């Protein structure tokens, strides 16, 4: 038998070679891979201009550690001093809200930032579209209310602080309970299920006698502590301490989430987000890590909830609208999905913009009335000019990657 010369044996081999640009021999070239027709995905991603090739724009991560810590410390101090922004000449009064007192606006921002940080773990890190995130916020807040409000049937008269660990535990558990059966779903299906989850929580709050519907639960205790003159630190008069509490929680959550992101956990999430099947084929326990993402997101949402309950002192079923979930998701995407600084900025903006519009007159009407219009326009503009978000993550690909169906031989 002579006819089987190796190249003749496979007629496709020769043609395939000729249709492909030979990849550059010299290594180190940042050129997108010159692939042929067989790798449509690679070709496509390769042509998308990588926004930051090495040596491009400087980023805080590229700074030496000392400078980076100094930058962080500076930002932190500035954040704690934000309630006195009035004292800053010229720009201070511009930044300050008019229709709502500034510390309250700051507090609102702080729990939105917490929510954005939590949702960023779920959506940004693990790539799971959760449209019902407000559900966990509600669970956290209601757990405190049920345990501590005198209006509640099972009022234990617990102080706020004692309710916090219970509420976080309940949130973690509810994250796992929702995730366990649903995390096998992908993309759109998961989004629908989480949307349903948030509605279930809202309807339950509306109709159950325990949560008292729109009559609500009042007199929820404030966080503990007194000033030296005996007056409580956390009162209805001044929201500044609540803001500081929120800011402190944000710092803790950023540290925790940052640790996770830099670790094998973060890599696993990223791998799942990029290609779930390949992640599992490389040994990543995908279901377990998705569950962790859900539970951690839920717990952080729960922190937002307990703070909210402690500040407001009153909750009812009208508090937790679906709009919350949508707003927080918009914040995460606007800031740069998968990026912690992005989530902080996005979360702050979704709360700040409407609050800033309060009390501003546009053509004889309060601009607050148009907040969603203005807000929507801003999101559209940001998404057009910065689709990767305001402070994008280095590793986030600018285009979503669909799971590829592997072709047969």
């Amino acid at each position, binding site marked *: 038998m002579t006819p089987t010369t190796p190249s003749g044996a*496979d007629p496709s*081999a020769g043609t395939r070679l000729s249709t*492909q640009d030979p990849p*550059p021999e010299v*290594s180190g070239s940042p050129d997108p891979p010159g692939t*042929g027709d067989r790798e449509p995905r*690679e070709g496509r991603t390769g042509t998308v201009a990588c926004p930051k090739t090495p040596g491009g724009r400087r980023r805080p991560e590229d700074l030496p550690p000392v400078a980076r810590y100094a930058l962080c410390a500076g930002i932190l101090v500035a954040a704690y001093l934000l309630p006195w922004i009035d004292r800053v000449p010229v720009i201070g009064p511009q930044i300050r809200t008019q229709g709502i007192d500034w510390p309250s606006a700051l507090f609102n921002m702080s729990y939105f930032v917490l929510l954005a940080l939590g949702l960023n773990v779920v959506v940004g890190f693990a790539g799971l579209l959760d449209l019902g995130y407000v559900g966990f916020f509600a669970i956290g807040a209601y757990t405190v209310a049920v345990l501590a409000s005198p209006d509640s049937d099972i009022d234990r008269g617990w102080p706020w602080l004692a309710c916090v660990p219970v509420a976080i535990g309940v949130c973690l558990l509810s994250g796992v309970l929702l995730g366990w059966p649903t995390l096998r779903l992908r993309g759109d299906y998961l989004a629908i299920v989480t949307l349903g989850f948030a509605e279930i929580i809202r309807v339950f709050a509306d109709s159950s006698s325990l949560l008292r519907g729109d009559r609500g639960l009042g007199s929820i205790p404030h966080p503990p502590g007194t000033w030296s003159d005996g007056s409580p630190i956390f009162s209805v008069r001044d929201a500044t301490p609540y803001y500081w509490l929120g800011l402190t929680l944000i710092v803790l959550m950023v540290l925790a989430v940052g*640790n996770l992101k830099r670790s094998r956990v973060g890599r696993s999430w990223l791998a799942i987000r990029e290609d779930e099947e390949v992640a599992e084929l490389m040994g990543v326990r995908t279901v377990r890590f998705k569950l962790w993402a859900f539970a951690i997101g839920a717990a952080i949402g729960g922190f937002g909830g307990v703070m909210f309950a402690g500040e407001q002192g009153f909750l009812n079923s009208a508090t937790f609208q679906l709009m919350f979930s949508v707003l927080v998701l918009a914040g995460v995407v606007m800031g740069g999905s998968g990026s912690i600084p992005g989530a902080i900025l996005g979360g702050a903006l979704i709360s700040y913009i409407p609050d800033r519009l309060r009390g501003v007159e546009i053509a004889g009407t309060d601009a607050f009335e148009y907040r969603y219009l203005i807000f929507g326009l801003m999101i559209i503009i940001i998404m057009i000019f910065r689709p990767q978000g305001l402070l994008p993550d280095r590793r986030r690909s600018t285009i979503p990657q669909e799971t590829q169906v592997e072709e047969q031989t």
Partner: protein
Amino acid sequence: MTTARMSKGEQPPASGAPCDGPAHGPGGAGRTPGREVLARVDGLELSFGGLVALHDVTFDVRAGEILGLIGPNGAGKTTFFNVLTGVHRPNRGRILLEGRPVTGLPKHRITRRGIARTFQNIRLFSGMTALENVMVGADARHRTSVPGALLRLPRHRREEERARTDARALLEFVGIGQHADQTARNLPYGEQRRLEIARALATGPRLLCLDEPAAGSTPAEKDRLLELIRAVRDRGVTVLLIEHDMRLVMRVTDRIVVLDHGQVIADGAPGDIREDPRVVAAYLGVPTDAA
């Protein structure tokens, strides 16, 4: 990079065909008899609807060999990889790795049991750096999880450090150490293929399945790939290789299994496979009886 070396039982590149006589069917006499069986593929059946993708596929993979899996397009080679790694479940039959069945296990458990793979159409985590891609594979062997990472426990940090070191070493091993911090999607095509091999090796496999690793490579790159495959085997990893380039397959493999229409039509030493009338017929489209 290790240079090509000729260890025992390995065919010198581009030599003539040493003929051991015809060797077909499961457990056929390759040139490495007596080696223990690493994986046993036993009567695999898989069909998608009416299409039979695999029919009674039976063969052994012996520890330490480079086994080629060839066949015309659509013969079921990648489908077989998918069954082997748990992407598809077979309708019947099973695969034993070191005597224990792996069929039916979740994909990540199969990986942990020691089977790793690359992909015909490159599937890297394209937004991560080369190093991070490999570390994902290395993570499969680590024990600490969320609590350890959250609190940055000493044991977790040790494991992170080890993953990083191992991953760097693997990148060096496949010859792309200088690109460790580049985003995977920015790597040249050939290096993406190498990165896939490094990522698969990071899981610590006994059996490495390469799905057309030379596709789209230049002849020079193919030569270096061949050296890499041998170097992988010399690390004690058994290699199962799907490849269309016959010259490469003939040079690098110890034994070849030929699939056609989802069935094993030949199993033997490269020299015998080249001469096998059924293989020739399958590739050239000549009816078997006319060959």
